[in-house]
């Protein structure tokens, strides 16, 4: 069976600087794929290209065998693709419930009353039901992060991209987030997990892809990757710099 998502020779040029260069890899259905790499490696750019926020300079992305590059983001979303953001992006002047409701209605295409039930369920899952009627701009950063995840989930995704979900969280918060991600895996959502911090990704992912300076330098099982020389160079090199 073909891969769920197939990234094929994607390059992106920002005014002369190559953010991505010929990146290709596949993501199988049900997998958690970790995408790691130092700062400025082009991870977020890749996610934005997958979501069609950005147009790749060359190359394309296939989803379930269909080329999706060039669609508008809302159509991409309807196919079952969704993402969270590194800096949480929520609808700041709406309540948490409304935030999720939009996705349920427009992303998942549910009727109003079904959507309301679904929204309750999702908020429950990220344990935000207490804050249901709070204006989301008034939440703490961590709560906004959870809400961002909830909004991403509200569209009933089959393929979810998490952009550095753990960055800047306390240990307790990390535990909570990881438990949610585990739940998602149980729901058979395919996940592309982008992270700068390694330990959790290595523990939970089925495969790891390493980007450095816009190029894919490694792909493989987590433990093989971590022990690879090139990988260490990429990370250590960064620390020295």
């Amino acid at each position: 069976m073909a891969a769920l998502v197939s990234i094929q020779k994607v390059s992106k040029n920002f005014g002369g600087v190559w953010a991505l260069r010929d990146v290709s890899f596949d993501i199988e259905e049900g997998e958690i794929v970790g995408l790691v790499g130092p700062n400025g490696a082009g991870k977020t750019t890749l996610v934005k290209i997958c979501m069609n926020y950005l147009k790749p300079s060359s190359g394309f992305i296939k989803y379930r065998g269909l080329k999706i590059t060039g669609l508008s983001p809302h159509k991409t979303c309807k196919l079952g693709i969704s993402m969270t953001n590194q800096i949480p992006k929520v609808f700041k002047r709406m309540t948490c419930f409304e935030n999720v409701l939009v996705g349920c209605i427009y992303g998942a295409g549910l009727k109003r009353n079904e959507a309301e039930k679904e929204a309750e369920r999702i908020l429950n899952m990220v344990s935000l039901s207490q804050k249901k009627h709070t204006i989301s701009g008034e939440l703490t950063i961590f709560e906004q992060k959870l809400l961002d995840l909830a909004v991403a989930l509200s569209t009933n995704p089959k393929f979810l991209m998490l952009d550095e979900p753990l960055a800047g969280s306390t240990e307790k918060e990390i535990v909570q987030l990881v438990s949610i991600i585990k739940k998602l895996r149980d729901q058979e959502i395919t996940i592309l997990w982008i992270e700068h911090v390694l330990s959790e990704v290595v523990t939970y992912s089925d495969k790891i892809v390493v980007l450095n300076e816009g190029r894919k330098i490694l792909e493989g099982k987590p433990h093989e990757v971590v022990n690879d020389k090139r990988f260490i160079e990429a990370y250590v090199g960064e620390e020295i710099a």
Partner: protein
Amino acid sequence: MKGWSNLSSNRTKLLSILLTSCIIVVIPWVLRGYPTLFLLQLAMNIAFAQSWNLCFSYAGLLSLGHALFVGIGGYSAVAICNGGIPIHISILVGAFISTFFAVVISPLFMRLRGVYFAIGTMILCSSFQYWFMHWTEAGRALGLRLRFYPEYSLESCYYFSWLVAFFATTLSWITVRSRLGLAARAVRDDVDRSEGIGVPSLLVRTVIFAISAFMAGMVGGVRVAYLLVVDPSVFSFELSLWATLAVVLGGAGTLIGPILGGALITLLQHVLMGLPEISMLITGIMLILIRLFLPGGLVSIIKKASLLLGVCRRWLLS
């Protein structure tokens, strides 16, 4: 809206709406003359403010050229009515023409964000003013005059404009509560994110813009029915500005806000009439003061009043 929800249940809400409608219907019979005139202008201001509010508060479209749709609605209504069509239908058709126009310009203008949209609409509106000044068929600077309108009276205009004000408020209410309104607010808060969760943002904004243009077009029609003439000054920046001031002073993002704001603006205009040389100066100062000392708009007073009412109620019940 929020301010109302704890003030009253649905039943009292319905009752108060019914009561208001009754009063509005009765007023021209009881109070002839000036109060009718005052309330007529109030209704027009409310309707236009509602139109602007829908655009700004619920879709984040800051239009500083909203008079454009008033103008197009007005000119179309006159042109159609002069062709022998009854005024009511002309107003409706005029409103549809301005809706159509809004839809046509949307794909181009929706690409502009924030202040750029504001500047774009402002300049578009003033170019329309120039254009109509030099358009011979549109009567150039003299504008068009409603030639055939035998059933004209202050009262008929009064009912017309209240009808439009009610219509605009109801339409806003329905829109805001619908899934379209939900999506529009999401687009307002974050265009990219809303796209990412499946909201067709261009479509949503276009539809909201079109609905708003429809209301503004109706206002244009009613304005013509009242003034009997439309001229290029209908596109003036001041007209758009008054809607902005009314909404923001009343309380943007609520349905009751534009009503209060429209009332305030009309009241200010009429109260200060007696000081013609400095009325605008005082108006300006008043607007700044209201803004500084009542940042939430007039709606915040209602909210406070409703809190007080809640306290009283609890005290009564205990």
